């Protein structure tokens, strides 16, 4: 493969309506506890421009970022023939593998870009929350390369399930804290409600924001969900479109897992553009865990993106910020909401979503490992499960491309739990979901905001 992608795909150019501001009504914010007017911006101007601009279809990747991408890009796009045979299908299954870089996942694509822009803006220290630790590892490495300090908050459940990820972050020079911690007001309040200290990305981000707002030279960086992160991740799909062309095949279905959405958007956006140009239909499937079914069961409503109460309300597909998600092994998919941009696109029917139980996901991942040798991250295995389901449901052979976001070599204890029969399906607490959705609906409807 000789593909070298030099631009990101700005989907807002194709769908400018999604770039329009959708601020929460002031009366909603007041009803929900007030509007935060501590305006110290966390984004740099350039990242904010990237989040909103409809001007360029192809956004040039800065040379220093391209040079860093050259360390591991293009990433492989391979056909998993032995996996197809094991499934007994005549369909073609391709995987785009983002796990072959230093940090181990697609998260490095945005981490390197963000570190570059933050450094350029004079920032000295990055604070962030990480789900399963892939983002934490990526931003720690990216900060080390850019000469920035990194502080990472990681939910307790993932911190304990994947103890080597914090070691990885520290090796790169990052400072890592188990969340909820006693370092912040957000963390201390969460500890009272959550004595087992399971934690969530919502709380981890809240802790990071609290410190970022109070320390000079510090900014909060986010690993998914925001438009600029989605933009950076489109390098995946930009490559994949060209790689499929080189192979001489084209997917009928593209699948990817969804936490807050950057991995899914990364592969989906370029295929959306390409399909509109070429007239070739592509079905896009977002795969999520049944433990955190924000797309398949959530509401399109205004909600907060973190527990700090410091960030603006955004409209998104969400289970409600009060939901407590089981401590599944795909810690990167436990976030309560989805990117506002992707949420709007989902509401408009541009892609579909499926939810998978934990053991089904690992069953697929183990079969994939035994046929290809690749041990993939539990999050990424959701994309494969969706690919297999699409193949099995299709009456005729099809071509499927799954975006495998990272390797699972630091998730072997999760594989062990599956292989020794100690894993459950990660089913959610139904009462908890009903309560959280009801509260979310109430908060929105009492101020006449329609939810869907």
């Amino acid at each position, binding site marked *: 493969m000789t593909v070298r992608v030099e631009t990101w795909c700005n989907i807002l150019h194709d769908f400018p309506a999604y770039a329009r501001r959708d*601020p929460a009504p002031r009366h909603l914010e007041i009803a929900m506890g007030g509007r935060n007017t501590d*305006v110290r*911006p*966390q984004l740099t101007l350039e990242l*904010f421009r990237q989040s909103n601009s409809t001007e360029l279809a192809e956004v040039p990747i800065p040379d220093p970022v391209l040079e860093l991408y050259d360390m591991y890009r293009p990433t492989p796009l391979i056909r998993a023939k032995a996996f197809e045979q094991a499934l007994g299908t005549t369909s073609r299954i391709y995987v785009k593998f983002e796990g072959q870089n230093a940090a181990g996942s697609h998260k490095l694509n945005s981490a390197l870009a963000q570190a570059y822009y933050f450094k350029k*803006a004079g920032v000295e220290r990055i604070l962030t929350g990480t789900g399963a630790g892939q983002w934490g590892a990526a931003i720690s490495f990216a900060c080390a390369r850019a000469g920035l300090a990194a502080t990472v908050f990681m939910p307790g459940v993932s911190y304990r399930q994947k103890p080597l990820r914090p070691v990885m972050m520290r090796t790169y020079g990052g400072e890592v804290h188990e969340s909820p911690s006693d370092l912040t007001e957000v963390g201390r309040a969460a500890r009272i409600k959550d004595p087992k200290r399971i934690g969530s990305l919502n709380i981890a981000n809240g802790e990071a924001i609290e410190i970022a707002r109070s320390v000079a030279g510090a900014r909060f960086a986010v690993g998914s969900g925001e438009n600029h992160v989605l933009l950076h991740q489109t390098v995946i799909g930009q490559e994949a479109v060209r790689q499929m062309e080189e192979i001489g095949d084209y997917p009928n279905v593209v699948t990817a897992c969804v936490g807050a959405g950057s991995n899914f958007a990364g592969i989906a956006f370029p295929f959306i553009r390409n399909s509109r140009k070429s007239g070739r239909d592509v079905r896009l499937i977002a795969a999520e865990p049944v433990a955190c079914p924000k797309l398949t069961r959530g509401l399109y409503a205004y909600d907060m993106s973190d527990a700090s109460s410091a960030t603006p309300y955004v409209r998104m597909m969400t289970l409600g910020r009060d939901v407590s998600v089981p401590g599944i092994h795909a810690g990167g998919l436990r976030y309560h909401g989805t990117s506002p941009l992707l949420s709007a696109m989902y509401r408009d029917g541009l892609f579909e979503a499926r939810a998978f139980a934990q053991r089904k996901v690992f069953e697929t991942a183990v079969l994939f490992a035994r046929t290809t040798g690749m041990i993939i991250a539990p999050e990424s295995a959701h994309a494969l499960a969706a690919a297999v389901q699409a193949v099995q449901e299709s009456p005729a052979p099809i071509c499927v491309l799954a975006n495998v976001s990272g390797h699972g070599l630091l998730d072997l204890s999760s594989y062990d739990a599956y292989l020794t029969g100690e894993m459950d399906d990660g089913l959610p607490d139904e009462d908890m979901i009903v309560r959280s959705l009801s509260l979310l609906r109430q908060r929105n409807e009492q101020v006449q905001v329609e939810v869907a």
Partner: protein
Amino acid sequence: MKSFVEQGGTVGVCLAPPSTPGPDEVVVEFDQVRIAIHISHAHEVLCADAVRAALGDLMAQPRSPESISDSESLFLDLGLNSLEYLELWTSIESRLGIRFDDEDLLGDVRTVGDVVSRTLDVYLGGVPA
């Protein structure tokens, strides 16, 4: 359309200008007589109008740009949040065709007047002398 003067602009004329015109001056010659026309207030009016128009668009309760005063706090009076604050600067950028740096946003920017002042600095920095 309102004239420059009707918008608050003023024009001053200097009959014996220095050899190098200032950033707020345009030098013209009539029959070998050099005069400098001072147009600094035009820049101030232009920048202030752009800031107020951008703010007017950002308000949840629409406000006419003329009703927004320099002394109003962006946060306490106008209620901007962090995203709207960034949007304010990018909106001014597109109205005036200028580009801010991150350092322009930080520091002691609290009132509408502070934004006008920063905007004018950047605008004049980009205006060819």
